[in-house]
């Protein structure tokens, strides 16, 4: 069974951004995503619970190029304003075509 090497982009952001970030990554070419609710703390301080919830933790398995573009967008439109972080890892998957 041959495995394909792809990128896993994980974004942690304040919950209010959910809708926008899902749009963004789709626009950049992500074919799917997985989202879990999270809490957290960082340079912008504790995200206390509110009506919108706290943080979201968003994962997308994408090609290297798409990963690049997603980080680019975050860099330009989100990092300066919002409580957001993102990191990239190497993952191996079956059915590589499914994600690109």
């Amino acid at each position, binding site marked *: 069974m041959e495995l394909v090497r792809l990128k896993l982009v994980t974004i942690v952001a304040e919950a209010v951004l959910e809708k926008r970030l899902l749009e963004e990554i789709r626009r950049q070419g992500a074919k799917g995503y997985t989202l879990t609710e999270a809490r957290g703390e960082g340079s912008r*301080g504790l995200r206390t619970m509110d009506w919108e919830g706290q943080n979201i933790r968003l994962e997308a398995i994408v090609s290297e190029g798409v990963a690049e573009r997603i980080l680019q967008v975050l860099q330009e439109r989100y990092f300066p304003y919002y409580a957001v972080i993102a990191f990239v890892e190497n993952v191996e998957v079956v059915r590589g075509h499914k994600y690109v």
Partner: protein
Amino acid sequence: MDALELLRLNLLSPMVLAFFLGALAVWLKSDLTLPEGLYAALSLYLLFAIGFKGGVELSHTSARAIALPALATLLLGLLTPAVAYFAARRFLRLDGVNAAALAAHYGSVSAVTFLAALAFVQASGHKAEGFMPTLVALLEVPGVIIGILLARRSSSGGRLGEAFREVLTGKSVFLMVGGLLVGVLSGEEGMKKVEAFFVAPFQGVLTLFLLELGLVAARRLADLRRLGWRLVAFGTAVPLLHGSLGLMLAKGAGLSLGGGVVLAAMAASASYIAAPAAVRLALPQANPSLYLAASLGVTFPFNLVLGIPLYYALANGLWG
């Protein structure tokens, strides 16, 4: 009953006490937290129930009876953000965006402050007009939108159209307006079926919600210390201005004393449900700890404890 006695009654109501209990938990570093699901569930219940009750009342209110009060409310929705904006520019010396963010919050309304005022008025033996919740729905949106528009003058970025959609279709506005529609359409008939759930336990649910709100507000006080006394002054002076404005307009619109006090509290209150989400999206450059500390850390407890009895005392002058 004299104002002092009412102040005592107000302070010692389970809701107010629960709020301070929540704050105490933070202060004692207790690990008390409400499960996130519960917080969302309580908000949802409260917003829908407010709307529903308002709608049922509305279903047997003549358009004529509500026309003037509605007008007065819309007027408040126009004036209060402006007042807050200029107060923030002049007195807090904030840049346009942050001032506008505050304007959006103080121009909108806090559902819980509204409920506390309603309870206070009842305890004082008066009665507010049944359609008051309708006015809450009316007051919730314009302030936020004007706030965002004010920011436009001083900056760009963020997306306006989207911001509007966000406010209008946002959870909180949708639930309250939705509940209102359900109430109007199902009327007393419908009320009979569900009042055991949406009316009887209401104040108890509110008590739990205030416990949570106390937790959230107390966490904001840390920011407050950083932001200093001027913000505290702002967070207490603006409500007084808006409250008085609310009283006068209520009087003019022919509301009862009870209705007047409630409308005053609505005007004096600062939103911390609809506004923060919308502002965060539309005005990302604005500093959230600024407007959250002011609305939730200062103005909410101020209205809860002192503001409401004060508006009541003033109303006794105006009406009595």
